[in-house]
């Protein structure tokens, strides 16, 4: 019994940090879906591009004597810029010509773009003889925080990285919330999401707003990529697929198109995944639950998929989404 408490607390901590990573990535899915009703399949590669840019930034800055937090800031901005612009380029070349096509046509295109990007990233890093990119982080980020005694007694271990991830995520969310809800541009984006034709009649350039949405979503993806790199330490050209699906699941869980929903969904999914990772331990502790022992940590990915199916069956509009019936 005495190990369960600390274990749960640890799940809570790692689950929340992972959840914030998912949340930031999920925002990219949710925003694009909001304006175009398109599952931007390539978003997973956009976020991996951010992670790769972050890796390169840290690698180039490693010998430079800069404050570690300044390095992080540079990495974040570089990742935001590259990933955001990439997302806009993708939209311009691959999705815009398909406006008005049946919904599955752009989806298939997006899958194609995703595959192309995977191999381009592999090629770019491969020319340097690299495939698995191991983040060379400044040492400060890995140091443990000294916590008050009553917290450590619960078995909580926090490193600077965890705090950084949460702080970055919260800043991003605050900024996004301000942008979408408090500015003219944000209002235009919301108008386009609600009804593109009418927004156009009101003098809003829908194409520009869609491009802007892709820029914001891509930039968020870039930040998510750097956070992913901080959290896991390694990334490669193909490592976007599974987190991509999970982040999409998070977006659906919260209600696709809803910004707070994406965050909530990300956090729930991060916690769920970490909890599933240790569920076998409960099986060994409590006799009646012994069947849980068979569920190893390798099944935690399945948890996300099953969660997705269950949500879509039971509450398709998500936790915070507004339902509507489709009109014919």
């Amino acid at each position, binding site marked *: 019994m005495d190990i369960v408490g600390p274990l749960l607390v640890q799940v809570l901590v790692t689950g929340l940090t992972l959840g914030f990573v998912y949340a930031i990535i999920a925002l990219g899915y949710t925003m694009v*879906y909001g304006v175009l*009703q398109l599952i931007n399949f390539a978003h997973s590669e956009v976020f991996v591009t951010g992670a790769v840019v972050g890796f390169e930034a840290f690698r180039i800055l490693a010998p430079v004597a800069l404050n570690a937090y300044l390095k992080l800031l540079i990495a974040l901005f570089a990742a935001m810029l590259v990933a955001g612009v990439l997302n806009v380029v993708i939209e311009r070349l691959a999705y815009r010509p398909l406006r008005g096509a049946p919904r*599955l046509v752009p989806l298939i295109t997006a899958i194609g773009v995703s595959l*192309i990007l995977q*191999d381009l990233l592999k090629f770019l890093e491969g020319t340097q003889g690299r495939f698995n990119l191991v983040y060379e982080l400044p040492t400060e980020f890995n140091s443990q925080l000294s916590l008050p005694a009553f917290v450590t007694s619960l078995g909580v271990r926090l490193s600077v990285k965890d705090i950084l991830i949460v702080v970055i995520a919260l800043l991003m969310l605050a900024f996004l919330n301000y942008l979408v809800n408090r500015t003219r541009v944000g209002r235009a984006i919301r108008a386009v999401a*609600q009804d593109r034709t009418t927004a156009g009649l009101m003098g809003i350039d829908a194409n520009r707003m869609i491009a802007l949405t892709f820029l914001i979503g891509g930039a968020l993806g870039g930040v998510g990529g750097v956070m992913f790199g901080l959290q896991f330490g390694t990334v490669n050209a193909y490592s976007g697929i599974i987190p991509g699906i999970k982040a999409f699941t998070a977006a659906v869980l919260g*209600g696709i198109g809803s910004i707070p929903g994406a965050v909530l969904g990300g956090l729930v999914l991060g916690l769920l995944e970490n909890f599933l990772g240790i569920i076998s331990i409960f099986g060994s502790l409590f006799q009646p639950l012994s069947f849980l022992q068979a569920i190893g940590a390798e099944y935690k990915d399945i948890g996300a998929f099953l969660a997705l199916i269950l949500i879509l069956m039971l509450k398709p509009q998500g936790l915070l989404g507004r339902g509507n019936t*489709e009109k*014919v």
Partner: protein
Amino acid sequence: MTAALRPSPRSDRTWLLVGYAAITSFLMLVFEKNLPAVLQSGLLVLFLANLLFAFQWRAAPWARLVVALGSLIVVLPLVGRQNTGIFDLAIQISIFAALALGLNIVVGLAGLLDLGYVAFFAVGAYLWGIFASPQIGRILGNAGLSSVNPNLFWLFLILAIAAAAIVGIVIGLPVLKLRGDYLAIVTLGLGEVIRVLATNLTKYTNGSQGITPIGSAPVPILNSIANSLGFAPEQFNLFFLYFLVLLIILLVIIVNMRLDRSRIGRAWIAIREDEVAAQAMGIPLVRTKLLAFASGASFAGIMGVVFAAKQQFISPESFNFFQSIGVLSMVILGGMGSIPGVILGATVVTLLNLNLLPALSEQIQGAFPGGLNATLDPAQYQRLVFGIILVLMMLFRPEGLLPNVRRKIEMHEGDGAVGAVDSLGDNAERHANDGALTTGRNIGTDSRSPGLATREENDRTGGEK
């Protein structure tokens, strides 16, 4: 490209066809062995074009039949005797063609984008793989048992059809009520679930180590034919599987054609074009979709058995998401809903992946005496090839290389919107021609799309009482 494939209806090309087939067959039989790999691939492509021409060109029926059957039944086995690789490739192409035909039912006819299709392939492959290898001995704790009786292979072909269809129904039941794009993601997830299970149920599937060696059925008659032709004993297996695959492909094509023109096929097309209208006309939605799922799955199941027998080794990695996308790109390249198109797509994509790219890398490797940096190895870039196929086809020729006639007519009566194919009809979207900023809908889009129209879907007007 297609201009060449579609001569004017009056020109009769019987002799051109026979001549072309004779020349390419001769080249295949005489020179195939001594050419560098890239030219070998090129020649193989030219030779396989026979089949396409035999199908496409206007020629005397006897000539078309002779060319098609002669190429497949006489020339290819003879070439295979000199070069097992060709044979291997022909079997692979046929396996993927059958898979693509199965997916064509789901995507091309019923308009359900299934991104986890390879899961059903895995069901068939593991079914035979587990029973026809020492794995069965390990499971039963009988180390001496190296396989079930190989003659059970025939039974397992039938079992695989049933098992895959059942898995298709089990997977389909919860998800088929979802709208198109959600369905795609969920099937992707389920495909991964099957792969994770195959990786982790080590007791049964031997995990990521995979299962080997997998046997196949002994067929004495074919073996003696192969023997008299001068095949080595270890190639008898391939010889048998080649003809088995041809037979299955033939069956699959017949089933596909019959389905296409049957009541159920029309119901699928109706669902694809407009779900709500189809339901209003009394088509039971869920049952019809399930049938599409199960039919598509059963083709994959039977091919899984053949695949396991041919490779003699299976592991979860053969059934990942990327393979599903590969099959999808075959369907899209050839033309959704078009049987010859899908076969062409499967041939082109499989040749690219298993033959042209490796041959190209061999050439390049040869050009660099010090060996080549793996980064520049074309064989490493299959994803890129698939991606480019998907994007370019969707942007420029969404109906595919050999489009279905009906689909083509549909395409060109459209509203002129780029790629407004109805082959992936999304019943929620009506093409509104209201100027440049069309959303593709007439009435209120809500950004918070529900993912499925609960009220309508649960409204049992569809006769599914």
